[in-house]
């Protein structure tokens, strides 16, 4: 009996010490990386191509901790003020051995098609506040799951901020068969990307009959305001002074369209 009691006592002491040491070192291990600045997050690099906005965020993790870091997942979710999900992306690193390091890039991409399909087209013509939820999950020593998360408020600059088309109330005679109408098309590019492409304005009357069209190349670098006075030729019999303008843009941002009313 005494031998068993003694064995239990020693077993208890040994497991106590081992658990305490493991607990302290495993919890201190990720903290050590933060305190020593072994996690480096680079500055985001935005780019735009084929109607998709992509932000590359490089990060480096140098594991100077006491244990391996496994199942590292970096997840970002961008939502608008109505909590509608704009984009979510995840970067995974299977294992960072003790003493090793990893250099990865987290990619956040948002396509114009996604924005349109999620009924978020207001983001194209209105600046907005976007909440970016960042979550980093990992396993310490392959057994302790740890998750760190935060929310960052970001401002979204609309590429077609305050987009508008105004049509002059009174057309002027152009020739025997057509009138000319002056129209003003404008928008401000608040996005970090250049807006280049073709803008097409189609005028319809109140009976939804096609009246006239104008089309031209537009170029609005980031931070610039686009404003253009255009002349559209219409048939007097079709132009009634009221109706809708269909604005259609196709270019670096993909295909975007708006409807404006005039004369009301």
């Amino acid at each position: 009996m005494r031998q068993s009691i003694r064995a239990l006592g020693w077993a208890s002491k040994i497991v106590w010490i081992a658990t305490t040491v493991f607990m302290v070192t495993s919890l201190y291990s990720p903290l050590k990386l933060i305190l020593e600045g072994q996690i480096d997050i680079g500055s985001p690099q935005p780019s735009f191509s084929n109607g998709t906005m992509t932000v590359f965020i490089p990060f480096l993790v140098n594991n100077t901790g006491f244990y391996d870091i496994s199942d590292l997942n970096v997840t970002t979710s961008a939502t608008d003020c109505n909590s509608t999900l704009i984009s979510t992306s995840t970067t995974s690193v299977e294992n960072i051995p003790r003493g090793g390091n990893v250099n990865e890039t987290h990619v956040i991409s948002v396509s114009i098609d996604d924005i349109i399909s999620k009924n978020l087209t207001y983001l194209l013509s209105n600046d907005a506040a976007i909440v970016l939820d960042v979550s980093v999950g990992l396993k310490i020593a392959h057994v302790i799951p740890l998750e760190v998360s935060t929310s960052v408020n970001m401002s979204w600059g609309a590429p077609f901020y305050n987009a508008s088309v105004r049509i002059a109330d009174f057309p002027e005679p152009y020739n025997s068969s057509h009138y000319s109408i002056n129209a003003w098309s404008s928008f401000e590019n608040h996005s970090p990307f250049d807006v280049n492409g073709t803008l097409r304005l189609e005028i319809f009357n109140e009976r939804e009959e096609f009246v006239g069209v104008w089309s031209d190349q537009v170029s609005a670098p980031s931070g610039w305001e686009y404003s253009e006075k255009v002349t559209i030729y219409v048939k007097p019999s079709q132009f009634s002074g009221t109706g809708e303008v269909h604005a259609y843009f196709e270019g670096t941002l993909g295909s975007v369209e708006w409807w404006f009313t005039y004369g009301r």
Partner: protein
Amino acid sequence: MADEGNLKSVLKKIMSNVTKAALKGFIMFLLTYLLPTLVVEAMVPSSSPFGIPSEYTTLLYVFSAIVVFFTVVTELFSGTILQHAFCVGRAIVLIVYFVYALNGGIFVSAFQIPGQQQVLRIFANLRAFLALLIFINLLGFAKGMLQAINFLSGRADLK
């Protein structure tokens, strides 16, 4: 004369137990409260936001109090059945304490990043640790029970 001698030996034993209890209690206080606090202070700079959250400082204090209390009473009642009863009691109290302190194995904390508005949330699944801590205390529980049985069987043999 014999009564005086008996009283003297009892007083001597009580004094010895009290001294031992005070000494062991002090050592346990150093090991369970002062040492962890000093280790955390040494590991984490005071300017860093990653110190022990205030609610966990209180829990550490409670842990220290439990350990010191049971160490002292176990030593005070050394040589009696109560010593083993307190050993078993300590194991049960510590199991309950760990389940409560580790929130069933889920650690959740949030703090504001200095100089910024963002709040950093930390979630850790410490169920593996909790299982180990419960296992250790079950070992202590079994040890206490065996010691109690051994003590009682020893007393029965003497009769």
